[in-house]
């Protein structure tokens, strides 16, 4: 079980939890920020990996959750990732 603070919005929290299932790391921001809740880091745990910012109070939480999901699905570092395209 992951021991991190939960995001108060259920749509965002569900997306974060699903990303963790797929090997992403979720980091809470150090503090002092009114709007940046934290960051999601892709399984490529280096500087070259994907970083996605998570807001605490996005204008539309459902849209924000959809954006996060899009970046998880589109991560170019995942295994068997096809950078080209099958004709």
């Amino acid at each position, binding site marked *: 079980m992951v021991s991190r603070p939960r995001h108060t919005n259920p749509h965002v929290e569900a997306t974060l939890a699903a990303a963790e299932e797929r090997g992403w790391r979720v980091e809470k921001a150090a503090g002092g920020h009114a709007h940046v809740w934290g960051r999601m880091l892709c399984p490529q745990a280096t500087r*070259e990996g994907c970083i996605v*910012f998570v807001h605490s109070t996005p204008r539309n939480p459902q849209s924000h959750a959809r954006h996060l999901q899009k970046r998880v699905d589109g991560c170019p570092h995942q295994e068997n990732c096809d950078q080209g395209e099958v*004709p």
Partner: protein
Amino acid sequence: MKEKPMSEREYDFSLILSGVTELTEDQAETLFEAGCDDATPSVIYGRVWLEFSRMATSYKDAVLSAIRDVRRANIGADVERIDECNLVTLSEIARKIGKTPQYVHQLVTGVRGPGRFPPPECHLTDTVLLWAWCAVSFWLTENNIVRPEVVEDLDTAYLINSALEELREGRCPQPTVTEHLKKELAAL
């Protein structure tokens, strides 16, 4: 001119930033406060994206107001382009117009439709070809394959990207290189 109804709807688009290769939490906070609270920042391979879902009366208004907000944040970043490439694969054409790749392939070969589909521009890889979206879009609407509203926003994205590019080229410090090449090519 007939006045359009001014009802708002949500437009999804992604902006690619220039001038920054990473994003600090402070910069993300500043973008949020400057009006990008409907955008999700991400960084991949040293490139910063802002994924927007913005309420506006048109796609153009949505994108231009987002560019204004990014500039207003004043974090040393500007908008390079909307994340819509003018060079597209056959599958991408299919996705954009909500059809199958098989359907588009039939348009390309002339098995379906009036024929004379725009020729491809170049190869992406040895086996994958790229078409210019603007040419394909024009052909699709001219031949009533898709309704104009299906490609309207994508065409607007292409125009905004062209304008952003021209503005960048205007600031390019060494235009002489291409000027020389243009003269050489014209003289052949």
